[in-house]
């Protein structure tokens, strides 16, 4: 493979520009991605289905369109699709063997839009079964592994996407986020993930987990690439009843602007304590970088997360079990041992518990709306710890044993409950070489400001480029 096709050294923006100018072809780029997948996927299990022939044909079609004069903003960019979203003619397993023989006739709307923009789908990426977990362990298709240390989890549920991006198998991906499923793997694998405002991107063609919380969003290697992908994905779709009719702004317009006049809130309680000490150091360095970029930092008293967690659990469990009730009742034995009890338990919830959670949810939205009058963005760690070893169920924080489900999701799920956008991006590495992630949160539909801040942070923080050792061996 020529150096020009080393995807780890390029952004989606650079590759698409070169394909548009015909300096390289989409076929060459795609082959580079497929070669890397062939070399690394047996160990890392980033993909459930690799679409070799379809991707080669799709890339050739992109080259023909470019030759005919078509302007495709993401020409030749190889992407992964989380295997809970439809790609025509390819099984959508959702990580479950129950759906192994599904054959969708059409692309999910977000997939269609990225293909229309010139992206080439190279495969369906690994996930926790039905996206109902944060480890991306999967007994049906193999455990997805963290490329920075394959003995550790990549996070989930969109773990395959993060692994594929961190190792240069792809330059973009479509993920889903209901409790942190885009942001957590982005943080643990050192890539960028955007959980969008509920209703900004069509969920059509996706396997639901929680109808009133599910979001579809981009994952990428840089903030600018995430913006490019979002530009193509966002906007009204009549096939999704939750889709907003608001016009889509230019997400690239403010990239490169500093953060003068932007107030960023720091919620110390709940989000900044307790933290792994190395995460704490990286966060302090990150706050300095945000100041360097021009932001005004504002300390904020934050209300308790306990009712937020309770409300999110209640809504998620009830909706997930309603969505998958037929499988729970008639195919429970085919579900994995960790997802089966979650789906079964949701059937025991009462309508009173669900409605109480939705009452609390409305109050949380009002409360957060009030808090956001004091600042424009919120900054938190994405995860209080780096990637744990495969099989761990708890972690030690401040000499307390904390369940991983609480350690990981308490910092991300509040913004699923409220529907707000949140961007996860790399902010450092531990001494052992594990990535650490930062989270920026905005008001609903403030993705433009969020991406501007993310890009300004990237520039100010100036992390040196690193490559997982597994890529070099």
């Amino acid at each position: 493979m020529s150096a020009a096709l080393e995807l780890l050294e390029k952004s989606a923006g650079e590759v698409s520009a070169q394909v548009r100018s015909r300096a390289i072809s989409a076929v060459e780029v795609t082959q580079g991605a497929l070669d890397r997948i062939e070399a690394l996927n047996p160990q890392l299990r980033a993909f459930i289905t690799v679409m070799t022939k379809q991707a080669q044909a799709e890339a050739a079609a992109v080259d023909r369109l470019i030759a005919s004069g078509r302007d495709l903003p993401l020409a030749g960019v190889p992407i992964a699709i989380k295997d809970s979203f439809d790609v025509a003619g390819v099984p959508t397993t959702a990580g479950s063997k129950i759906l192994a023989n599904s054959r969708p006739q059409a692309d999910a709307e977000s997939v269609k839009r990225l293909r229309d923009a010139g992206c080439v789908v190279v495969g369906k990426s690994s996930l926790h079964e039905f996206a109902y977990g944060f480890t991306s362990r999967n007994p049906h298709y193999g455990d997805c592994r963290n490329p920075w240390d394959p003995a550790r989890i990549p996070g989930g549920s969109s773990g395959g996407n993060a692994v594929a991006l961190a190792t240069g198998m792809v330059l973009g991906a479509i993920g889903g986020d209901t409790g942190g499923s885009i942001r957590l793997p982005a943080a643990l694998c050192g890539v960028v993930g955007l959980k969008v405002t509920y209703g900004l991107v069509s969920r059509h063609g996706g396997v639901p987990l929680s109808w009133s919380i599910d979001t579809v969003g981009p994952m990428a290697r840089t903030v600018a690439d995430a913006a490019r992908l979002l530009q193509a994905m966002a906007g009204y779709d009549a096939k999704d009843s939750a889709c907003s009719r608001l016009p889509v702004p230019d997400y690239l317009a403010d990239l490169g602007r500093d953060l003068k006049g932007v107030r960023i809130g720091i919620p110390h309680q709940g989000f900044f304590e307790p933290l792994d000490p190395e995460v704490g150091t990286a966060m302090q360095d990150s706050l300095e970088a945000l100041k360097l970029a021009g932001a005004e930092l504002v300390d904020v008293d934050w209300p308790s997360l306990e009712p937020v967690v309770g409300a999110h659990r209640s809504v998620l469990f009830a909706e997930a079990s309603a969505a998958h009730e037929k499988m729970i009742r008639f195919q429970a034995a085919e579900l994995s041992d960790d997802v089966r009890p979650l789906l079964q338990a949701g059937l025991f919830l009462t309508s009173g518990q669900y409605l109480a959670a939705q009452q609390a949810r409305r109050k949380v939205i009002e409360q957060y709306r009030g808090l956001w009058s004091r600042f424009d963005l919120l900054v938190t760690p994405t995860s209080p710890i780096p990637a744990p070893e495969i099989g761990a169920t708890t972690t030690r924080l401040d000499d307390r044993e904390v369940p991983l489900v609480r350690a990981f999701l308490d910092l991300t799920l509040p913004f699923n409950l409220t529907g707000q956008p949140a961007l996860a991006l790399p902010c450092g590495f531990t001494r052992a070489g594990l990535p650490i992630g930062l989270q920026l949160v905005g008001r609903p539909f403030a993705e433009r400001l969020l991406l501007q801040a993310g890009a300004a942070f990237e520039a100010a923080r100036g992390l040196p480029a690193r490559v997982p050792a597994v890529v070099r061996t």
Partner: protein
Amino acid sequence: MPDDQPQRLSETTVRRMAQDVVRLPLTEAMVEPVRSTLEGLFNEIAAIKPEDREGFEPLSQVILEEWSR
């Protein structure tokens, strides 16, 4: 009024609820994982106190357009 004691669920209770209320067939091996999941879930939901929701109608549709600067 609910108290602040953590809720404990027995396997017998789960079996009875599964059979009489939910009508969900559970094998013996499935009972304990459901029991422990439900116990944790009920306790997390119990963290929603009356003051965390009183005065608010349940959210029936997530519409966020009006939350602007």
